[in-house]
């Protein structure tokens, strides 16, 4: 049964998408989206919206919601979308479809890495890639900060930046168990990082 939403609105356009179609759609994404999370998001959106199952608005909403769930956000998105499109079974099929081909490729590549790195030429390939990996980690942290930190809320922004630096120092220098910064961030954030109330007269 199709609902009445249009493409630009938040909404699920089709109910009870056949499980086979869901599986094919997510396996297609899982096979094609080389290069990690960014390409996966792009191809998921392309696949789900072009098939006319959900709107771009719904995709964006679920993308935001998935960040509230522990674990890999894109797997949470697959579960949410699958659930919306065909209930609990749809969620299982969707996450399986997104996981399976990519997992097989990842495991095969990992197993091959031992062979590749056992000779000098292969080892030099990896030695060149390792500094890039370090750069990717910093770039990801920087880009996440750029998106997540509320730069216009000066008090919250300052507190969050201080907390980021504190977490870094606690773990990198003082080797604090990493669970504590996360739990303290959640508990403290509920009080200290709340969105600042809009300035009177500026919210119109």
């Amino acid at each position, binding site marked *: 049964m199709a609902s009445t939403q249009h493409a630009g609105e938040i909404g699920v356009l089709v109910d009870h998408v056949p499980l086979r179609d869901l599986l094919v759609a997510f396996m297609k*994404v*899982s096979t094609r989206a080389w*290069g*990690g999370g*960014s*390409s996966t998001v792009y191809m998921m959106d392309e696949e789900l919206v072009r098939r006319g199952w959900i709107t771009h608005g719904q995709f964006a909403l679920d993308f935001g919601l998935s*960040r*509230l*769930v*522990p*674990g*890999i*956000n894109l*797997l*949470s998105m697959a579960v*949410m979308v699958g*659930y919306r499109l065909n209930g609990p079974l749809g*969620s299982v099929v969707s996450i399986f479809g*997104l*996981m399976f081909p*990519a*997992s097989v*490729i*990842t*495991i095969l590549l*990992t197993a091959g*890495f031992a062979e590749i790195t056992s000779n000098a030429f292969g080892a030099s390939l*990896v*030695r*060149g*890639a*390792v*500094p*890039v990996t*370090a*750069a990717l*980690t*910093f*770039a*990801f*942290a*920087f880009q996440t900060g750029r998106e*997540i*930190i509320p730069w216009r809320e000066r008090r919250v922004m300052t507190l969050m930046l201080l*907390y*980021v*630096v504190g*977490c870094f120092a606690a*773990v*990198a220098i003082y*080797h604090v168990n*990493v669970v504590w910064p*996360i739990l*303290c*961030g959640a*508990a403290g*954030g*509920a009080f*200290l990082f*709340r969105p600042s109330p809009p300035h009177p007269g500026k919210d119109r």
Partner: protein
Amino acid sequence: MSFFSLFLVFLKASMLSSGGLAPLALLREDLITNSGVLTDGDFAQAVAIGRITPGPNGLFVLSVGFYAGGLPGAVAAALAVMAPPFISIGLVHVHRRIAGRPWVEGMTRGITASAIGLLSAVGYSFITPLLSAPASIAIFALALGVLLFTKLDALPVLLIGAAVGVGCYLVGIPLA
């Protein structure tokens, strides 16, 4: 480590983190610092593989699982990362009630801020072994610049880094 122990390690990391590379810090603590099962080199390779292969970045945990326990380790990691996302079904139902509440937004921000700090700490641990080789540091700096200031994807940057590594090998420049 046994299959079940590895499953619990990955489940804990998955439950206490949010985002692709966020479990890195927790996994590093359990598999390197506390147990010595893996090395920083294993981790760096696992992250590199995760960024190349299709699917979410977080699938690097399968590589970590493979290094820690072979195919069963990778399966343990896969099963562990598939569990937490099902919490999102409950979220779909309660979202309308809690969305927009300031404390929810604040809590999300707090978790994300801690993740940024922890990720930076992981990056720091990757850099430390590179300090002995100026060429490795140069590759790091150039790659970071490219990633931050251009729209080039991770895959070509990784491939260029690997090619530079081969070039350094051929001309005799040491890399860490």
